[in-house]
């Protein structure tokens, strides 16, 4: 068997923390190889070592049977390794063409390059226009730009770091077609993902890391999704089940809510109506960019709406700001973690205190008692397994998944009567997602109402007892999950989609 890349016994430490501890990995020619692991398992470190942006403390690598120790990404690219980054490495104010040129070391500016880009884009069915400014593109189109930039290096190995986390289901399907074609053309792919279903669909091999160590290499199709997840987290997953769905009286309603978006790329909301009862989990499914952001801003109170359009416990609250809403026991987890959910440059403790509607338990005469704050943060950190050295760390220093756990936890421990949460497990690994889901269910079992806005259909299906679909700013009627709703939901999602 021929291997394109062999990684042997790589170790890399940051102080006391061993990010990679004696990790080995072998990627076959023309294969799609999955690299699995929770947040902080050492996937990114390993990939950075392969891509030359980090050098290992010990261990060696072979590239097509030759010694390989890249000093920089330039060297990695020279050898034929290309990478699509998790947070796109694109430049928003530049055109597609300029972005692609920036990633290609041998191409200058005057090489009249558009035609070649178009040629590649046709060959792999990746539709892009070289002259467009990247800032105007959808997330899916941006990823196509990244992929084409990589493909134009004619790579022998393409590394993809969680490529599907921001894509719509249709875009994911398109991506997989491209990846399969690429592998068939002789390019090996190292595919990093949390999404085990996808890994089982397209990867022929999987390497699983946990806590910096190699757990196992296996063939993903030989294991169930649950088994793979348990290998990743090293313990059993909790089965999700609602103990008792005791739906009480109505607690929150949206009535006739419309909004004209002030962003030229935004979506106008049209006559949104919805009711939530105590003890019920209601989901809003739908492909991102169909008005979710606009709706969330209104629900949180970042933007006010006519008084009577929102009603909580019999009180019209459309004009209340988010602090006033929190005082009524409505709590929120917005999708955008840095900037909306948390202040990036403040510590977890400070972020803990900031969103509290009533901070008397952490202050005395308005003077902050940091010890008490830290106790509360510690509680969240322990309960939701947030990986951080201390609660004094800045919010922005945590990985996305970890911060998400902290933010969901922060809201949950306040026992909200209504929790509105957007993308509760976005970027969170399987084990932690399981924890968050379990906590949401427990909250609902206690009689609180939950509204989940998510484009992860599996998540919505497994948690919610009533589901709406948001499409082009219009909200469908509720689909009751007891009566075979799945087909109907798919129809609604597809029906509302414009290509």
């Amino acid at each position, binding site marked *: 068997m021929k291997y394109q890349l062999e990684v042997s016994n790589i170790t890399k430490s940051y102080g006391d923390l061993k990010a990679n501890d004696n990790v080995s990995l072998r990627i076959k020619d023309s294969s799609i190889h999955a690299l699995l692991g929770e947040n902080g398992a050492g996937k990114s470190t390993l990939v*950075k070592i392969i891509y*030359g*942006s*980090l050098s290992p403390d010990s261990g060696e690598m072979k590239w097509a049977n030759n010694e390989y120790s890249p000093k*920089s*990404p*330039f060297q990695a*690219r020279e050898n034929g390794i290309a990478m699509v*980054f998790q*947070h*796109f*490495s*694109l*430049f*928003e*104010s*530049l055109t597609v063409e*300029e*972005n692609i*040129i*920036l*990633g290609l070391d041998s*191409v*200058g*500016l*005057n090489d009249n390059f558009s035609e070649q880009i178009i040629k590649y884009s046709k060959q792999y069915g990746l539709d892009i226009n070289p002259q467009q*400014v990247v*800032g105007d593109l959808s997330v899916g189109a941006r990823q196509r730009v990244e992929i084409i930039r990589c493909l134009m290096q004619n790579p022998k190995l393409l590394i993809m770091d969680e490529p599907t986390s921001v894509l719509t289901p249709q875009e994911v399907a398109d991506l997989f077609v491209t990846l399969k074609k690429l592998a068939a053309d002789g390019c090996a792919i190292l595919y990093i993902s949390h999404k085990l279903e996808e890994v089982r669909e397209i990867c022929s091999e999987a390497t699983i890391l946990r806590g910096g160590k190699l757990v196992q290499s296996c063939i993903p199709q030989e294991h169930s999704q649950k088994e793979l997840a348990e290998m990743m987290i090293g313990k059993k997953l909790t089965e999700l089940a609602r103990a008792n769905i005791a739906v009480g009286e109505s607690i929150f309603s949206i009535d006739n809510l419309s909004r004209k978006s*002030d*962003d*030229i790329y935004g979506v106008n909301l049209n006559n949104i109506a919805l009711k939530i009862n105590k003890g019920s989990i209601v989901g809003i499914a739908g492909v991102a960019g169909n008005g979710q952001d606009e709706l969330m801003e209104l629900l949180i109170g970042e933007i006010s709406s006519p008084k009577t359009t929102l009603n909580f416990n019999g009180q019209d609250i459309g004009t209340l700001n988010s602090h006033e809403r929190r005082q009524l026991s409505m709590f929120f987890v917005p999708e955008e973690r840095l900037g909306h959910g948390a202040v990036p440059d403040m510590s977890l403790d400070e972020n803990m205190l900031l969103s509290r509607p009533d901070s008397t338990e952490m202050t005395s005469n308005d003077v902050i008692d940091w010890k008490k704050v830290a106790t509360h943060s510690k509680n969240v950190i322990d309960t939701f397994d947030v990986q951080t050295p201390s609660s004094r760390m800045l919010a922005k220093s945590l990985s996305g998944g970890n911060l998400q756990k902290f933010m969901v936890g922060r809201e949950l421990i306040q026992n909200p009567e209504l929790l509105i949460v957007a993308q509760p497990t976005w970027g969170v690994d399987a084990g932690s997602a399981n924890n968050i889901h379990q906590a949401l269910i427990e909250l609902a079992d206690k009689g609180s109402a939950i509204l989940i806005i998510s484009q992860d259909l599996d998540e919505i299906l497994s948690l919610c007892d009533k589901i709406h679909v948001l499409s082009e700013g219009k909200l469908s009627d509720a689909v009751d999950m007891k009566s075979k709703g799945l087909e109907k939901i798919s129809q609604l999602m597809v029906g509302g989609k414009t290509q």
Partner: protein
Amino acid sequence: MNESLFINIIIGISIASVPLIFAAIGELLVERSGVLNLGVEGMMIVGALLGFVVMSHTQNPYLAVLSAMLGGMVIASIFAFLTQFLLTNQVATGLALTLFGLGFAAFAGRGYTEETIQLITAVPIPYLSDIPYLGPLLFSFNPLVYLAFFMVYLVWWFLFKTKQGLILRAIGDNHDAAHAIGHNVVRYRVMAILFGGAMAGIGGAFLSLVQVPIWGEGMTAGRGWIALGLVVFASWQPFRIIFGAILFGGITILQIHAQGLNINVSAQYLSMLPYLATIVILVSLRMRLKNKTNRTVPNCLGRIFHSTT
């Protein structure tokens, strides 16, 4: 209005706008790379002093201009070191640089306040300058005037026609991404900052070598700040710098000629004009862009780049 007055006004405007063009085009490149250097005024005044001192000792205009550029670069290199290697806050460092430059120049220039030098004079281009009207308007300037306009072209060409320019713009747009694909963010920024220093230095020297033959404490009189405003006014587009600088230069000249034309306004009001105009234009520009996604500002402007790998 007679013709010679008209020509004089045009020439006056050009002369008044040149220091602004130099300083602003340098700062434009700096800001395109994502760095905000508020020390333009400080670099200009050091350039003005050094140019004057070297001229008064050597009578060599080339050496004088060159020293002014070097002086600007030395001051800029302090800024580069502090912000790019010690990761200090750019706004605070830039302000400190201005204060330092002004103070240093005032101190070091004490012995030169009584001196005068031979101004660098205009060099009419043979034959072309004899063309009626066009000759005096286009072909009878000081070489530094042509250089200023050429620098604008050069910066435009670099930014939009070379790969290095593209990389520099990319770094200003998203330094993390640029770093991720392997470009050396700090090196590009240091070079840009040094270029900005050289341009500010030469802009300052234009004041003391071409406009007036004397050295005076604080003789840059806020031109560095106007240059900073000009970069915003130009929406980071090189050629718009010329337009903006001429506008501001024009207001300055208007201030001088207004009295000659018997417009009875107090001199204090007139000397406020360029600064007032700066504010009005910046505000109106912002109003115009209010509801649009602004893609002209380099996204990383003023942000500290700290490589984690």
